[in-house]
């Protein structure tokens, strides 16, 4: 058998699959076969490539040509032109937001070239459903090293020297956790992979599990050796069916190869794992709640101490780490602590995976070295804010995190700096916001989220999140009162100090950071009944500039509430009592006319408003 001339790596992450990647792959194979190229060209599925916004994606190796937004109907041309005739199809290549000509090769694309891949090292180059692919890229060599060359203490020492900290949010040193569990008395110990990723807009763990499940399994087996555990559980959100499926496939393969189960790699080391599907609540990601859920009980968190390393699953010593933490382990063991520690800052080592979403050109999954600045991520990798809008803030850490304003764009990404800025690393959600985002509304959104996801066990969180959401709701409706900011701050303190688990303790962060950096927006809402970002419906109104209006009746015809009056060729007027503030009039007013204006603030002070017609996409 001869080696194929070309490898077509078709991304099969959830994003691309939703965009039709499976269909594209099918048609690809069919077209290749139809032209008799099937011996020469190999089509292989891969895990998530990260650039989800451009999916479905295919990379042609060995040249590294990057095709994006592929549709079934593009495939015959692609096969004909590129694979048969050797003429890459420029129309299917990526064009950077600020450029005009396509960038053919993946290594030249901004989104990829600033990243540093450790956890995602195998993304886009292996088929996640083939263990041989993983092994071909040094897979399970770290486990072999851990079993044959290192003692359990040696493994922990290596992890300790690497400076690896928990990637689930709080950043607890991983080696300390392992050592504590190792020290705990008891023959039965457990390991858990926390794959209950619940932050809105975050999908790092899903991608790792889908793209490289063996990396997690290998990390887990190394951890088992280190702490002396015989059983591991992978707790994966039930909403991640593809991840569950790929992990199950990987477990089966690893067992067949003697990499899980009894006598691993011919040693006397036994370790096996089981997949537990999540119970469908955000709080299940809290470690004690997660353990309750694995035990088959309601996912209620419990007080710590005792910590899981002393009394965890079924009361036995347990190490629970995030997916990404586990996936880091094999590289550290294989390449050494010094290599890992060479990346990052003094206290935050290695890399971090973020899901970069929101008002950003290059949406997707990125892995960057610790210590990189937010500016590099947003501007270089993310390609900046679309539509020429101004960057306003980036929300990091999901409902537990906070909003970091543009003034702090040069902040380095590490546990301490983010915490000092009022946010947190979190599991890696990064939501970029532009000037059209109301920060009070964002705070309200997150508090509504935590209010709904609070488990209901402890009083401060159950009712405090609700009261905070109510106050924020009043403020965005223009019903805020002078003492509301004070009340929010008191409630925030009550939640931080009084709540049982991390969910409640960190729930006020979105409010506290927006109060810290965007207090003027709160005050504009409360005092002037004005939404500076022109978002809060109750505080905005649409008017028609009589001088600009040409009386084309376009807006009046489209208005769903018949609020626009005015005859042909006469200036139109919006009846504010009837207006439902849907903004359709603004959207349909022809760009040459631009007579519809959007304002917020008291009617007698229209200067407070900002004409918002230009730049609407």
């Amino acid at each position, binding site marked *: 058998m001869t080696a194929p001339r070309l490898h077509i790596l078709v991304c099969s992450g959830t994003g691309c699959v939703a965009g039709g990647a499976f269909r594209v792959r099918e048609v690809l194979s069919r077209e290749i076969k139809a032209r008799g190229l099937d011996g020469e060209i190999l089509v292989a599925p891969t895990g998530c490539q990260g650039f989800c916004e451009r999916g479905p994606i295919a990379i042609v190796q060995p040249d590294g040509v990057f095709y994006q937004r592929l549709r079934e109907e593009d495939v015959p041309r692609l096969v004909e032109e590129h694979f048969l005739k050797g003429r890459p199809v420029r129309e299917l290549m990526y064009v950077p937001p600020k450029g005009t000509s396509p960038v053919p090769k993946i290594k030249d694309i901004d989104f990829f070239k600033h990243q540093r891949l450790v956890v995602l090292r195998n993304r886009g180059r292996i088929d996640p459903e083939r263990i041989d692919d993983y092994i071909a890229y040094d897979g399970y060599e770290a486990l072999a090293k851990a079993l044959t060359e290192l003692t359990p203490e040696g493994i922990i020492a290596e992890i300790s020297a690497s400076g690896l900290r928990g990637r689930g949010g709080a950043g607890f040193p991983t080696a300390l956790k392992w050592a504590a569990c190792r020290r705990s008395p008891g023959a039965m110990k457990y390991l858990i992979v926390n794959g209950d990723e619940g932050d809105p807009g975050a999908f790092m763990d899903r991608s790792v599990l889908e793209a490289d499940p063996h990396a997690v399994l290998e990390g887990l087996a190394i951890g088992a050796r280190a702490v002396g555990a015989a059983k591991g559980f992978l707790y994966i959100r039930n909403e991640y069916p593809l991840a569950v499926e790929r992990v199950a496939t990987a477990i089966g393969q690893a067992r067949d190869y003697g990499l899980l189960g009894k006598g691993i790699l011919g040693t006397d080391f036994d370790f096996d794992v089981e997949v537990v599907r999540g119970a469908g609540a955000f709080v299940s990601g809290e470690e004690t709640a997660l353990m309750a859920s694995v035990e088959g009980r309601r996912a209620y968190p419990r007080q710590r101490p005792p910590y899981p390393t002393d009394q965890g699953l079924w009361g036995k010593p347990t190490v629970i780490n995030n997916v990404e933490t586990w996936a880091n382990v094999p590289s550290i063991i294989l390449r050494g602590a010094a290599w890992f520690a060479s990346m990052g800052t003094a206290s935050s080592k290695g890399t971090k995976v973020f899901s970069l979403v929101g008002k950003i050109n290059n949406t997707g999954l990125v892995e960057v070295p610790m210590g990189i600045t937010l500016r590099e991520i947003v501007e270089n990798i993310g390609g900046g804010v679309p539509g020429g809008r101004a960057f306003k803030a980036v929300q990091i850490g999901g409902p537990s995190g906070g909003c970091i304003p543009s003034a702090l764009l040069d902040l380095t990404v590490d546990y301490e700096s983010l915490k000092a800025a009022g946010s947190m690393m979190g599991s890696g959600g990064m939501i970029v916001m532009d000037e059209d985002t109301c920060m009070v509304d964002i705070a309200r959104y997150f508090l509504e989220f935590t209010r709904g996801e*609070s488990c*209901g066990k*402890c*009083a401060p969180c159950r009712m405090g999140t609700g009261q905070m959401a109510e106050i924020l709701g009043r403020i965005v409706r223009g019903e805020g009162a002078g003492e509301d900011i004070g009340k929010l701050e008191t409630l925030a303190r009550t939640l931080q100090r009084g709540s*049982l688990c991390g969910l409640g303790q960190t729930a006020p962060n979105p409010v506290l950071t927006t109060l810290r950096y965007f207090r003027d927006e709160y005050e504009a809402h409360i005092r002037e009944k004005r939404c500076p970002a022109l978002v809060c419906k109750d505080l905005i109104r649409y008017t028609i500039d009589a001088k600009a209006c040409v009386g084309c009746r376009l807006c009046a015809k489209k208005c769903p509430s018949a609020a626009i009056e005015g005859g042909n060729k006469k200036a139109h007027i919006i009846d504010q009592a009837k207006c439902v503030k849907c903004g359709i009039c603004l959207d349909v007013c022809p760009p040459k006319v631009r007579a519809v204006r959007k304002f917020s603030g008291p009617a007698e002070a229209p200067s407070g408003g900002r004409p918002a017609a230009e730049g609407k996409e």
Partner: protein
Amino acid sequence: MVTIDGRAVPADGAATLLELARRNGIVIPALCDHPDLKPFTGCRLCLVEIEGRNGLAPACGTKPEDGMVVRTDTEELRGLRREILGLILTEHPHACLICAEKASCDDLKSTIRKAGEVTGCVQCPNNRRCDLQDVVEAVGLTSMTYPAAFRNLEVRRGDPFFERDPNTCILCGKCVRVCEEVRGNSVLTFAFRGGSTVVSTAMERPLLDSGCRFCGACVDACPTASLFERAVKSQPLPDGTGETVCPFCAQGCRLELGLGNGRVLFSRPSREGPVNRGQGCVRGRFLVRETVGSARRITEPRVRRDGKLVAVAWEEALTEAAAAFGRFRGDQTAVLFSPEATLEDAFVFYVFARDVLDSTLIAGGAFPSVWAKWSELGRRHGGAFPLRATLADIASAETIIVVGADLAVDHPIAWVRVVEAMNRGARLVTAGPVSRSAGRSEMVHIECLPGREHAALDALAKRLEGDRKSPVPETAGIHARNLGKAAEVLAAGKPAILLLDSYLTAGPEGLRVLAASWNLARAVGAGILPLGRGANERGIFELERAAFPGERTKPAAFIADGLETGTVKALVLAGAARELGAARPEVLVAIDTHWSPQVEAADIVLPSAAFTESGGTFVNTEGRVQGFGAALPPAGSALPDWRIVSLLGRKMKGPDFGFDDAPGLRARMAASVPALSDLATGPDGTAPSFFIRETGTDLPGEIPVGDSGPGSAAGPEYPFVLAARPSGVYYRSFDQAAEIRGFGRLCKPGQIVINPADAVRLRVKRGDLVEVASPWASVDGRVEISAQVPEGAAEARLAVGKPGEWDFLRRRISPVAIRRMTR
């Protein structure tokens, strides 16, 4: 040493900081803490500051450690508590809690109390016994910062005994946790999440359909009025309290009584009860009030004149009774009294039968007690072996063997102790036709056909002794696969205890079950605890032994036969009317608390004081002697049974007979009954509590179990084996299931439970009316379908008082045919 608020106190084995603080008089407000439950740490009011720890720690969930420095009362903590309590109150009707007029409201209030919807304390049934009120007081909350968020959820009123109002719930979870952790039932659960969280049942079904046994533990744990006893809702607060021992089964729970207007307003399990320690069951919790306060109470002596029972004075009634009995001698007369009779009453019954009537026909209940059977077994095998296991031993056992019992329903305190043991990791082996606690991982069940329990125990004992060859009797329906597993469990866990339901010892297989139990207990090294039914069965057995040494009395069956054949001419029927059957003697004197059809047929009716009115002494199933006083004056002119019989005896035998006061009676009893000799030592007026003195020596060796062939094989026309269990829902002659509506809905008397496969074969559905016929008798009942009953078997709870049903009960196991009845 732990330093709390600057005071160094010894940790002294306190489980939590909260407990330690309370012990030292330091008040920390708390709403979700409960001494019997694991820490929940949900209300967050007991947060304290611990030096050297990040964040605050809940005192209820923190173990005191040597050297800990704790502050419970800092400015921050006070503020935080006010805030958190304020948040809790946003969902709870709180108008009255923070009302400026609170202090003078009690004198001046014009509001209607006990409104349909609770909007403030003055309409709340829990007013002034509410933990939340106390905590508001302690925290010093006087105003509300946040707007009320009244939840306006539906109040669940459809279930018996208590209502569930989620609008006053503060989600402390005590009800959910007591149901799971203490009662092992998990009927109540949290549903939904966040602000929508409520305490509910699975799929929000009624409690009646959720496996609830209405023990009331949740009601007693509730700190607010969210779970509230319906009958008490519209009543004033009690003006007095009392204490009693529950007479409704043989466990001996101590109950607290709330009294008002000379009536029992409510009864609650007492935390000081040595047996029950704060737990009880539906009967002790909800039926005392309905039973002693029933409109069917007999309040004055009556004598039959011209076919009608007319009220007369005591003197006249007693004179007439004495004259009627004077016409007969010896075994022409008989006394049948109920197993709920106190030691005082029963002692006088025995003395009366022996010394006044000269009759050997006296029985305390329709069934020979398990102790009588036990002693018979001993006699047959040349020994008298004592039973020394106690209910407390269950909780400390590693292995518990349960034979034939439906513990959670019939012996709920034993079940609570079993749950306690299982929570600790103990294992449970059950044997019998029905697996009562199926689904618990701690349990191994050995299934057998009804009446073959002895064969199952025998097979298990043999397996335990390493005998893997002996064949398992095929006819017993025993699944061999569980035998090995059960033997493993039994071999591993010491100490062990064997619990034996006394109903198994009725019928012809009774002695075999006892023998097989003895052999198994012997092989395992387990103590045996028989679980009796009547409140004083154990005590009555001791009295009988002492009054008639050498087993001269005859079991109740002789009385029944004597009545049928007409040899018994005159009968004293004391609270046992239900056990009489259809036959009537020439003279029937009923001494009873409640009217029943049998009492209404009597010639002379003498009103009896109920247990709350007479006081007395019971010996529970483990041999614990517990005295209790009278909490109330008797209904009408009723008198305690011992007093009535003393007066009657005096009329017949002269002034030397009988007793005038209970202490004197107890002193006599102590002197003449060796097992009860400690009864006199307690100072007068205080309730005695001790274990009866057991005598006897252990039997040597194994007892042959005897024939293990099918005991009740009948022809193909009777393909089912019916196991009849007494419904056991009486107090004396008062049928609680029939008279107390809510209780009737719970016990569903007259149900015939069969296996789903048999239901298909018989073409019957749940609720269909069927006839169950044996070669001797037949009963009707409604079909219930449960996979817990093996194929070919049927189970029914039958009433002692109904002649047809009694026939099944007396045999316990009957071959039957089941036929669907058409209307």
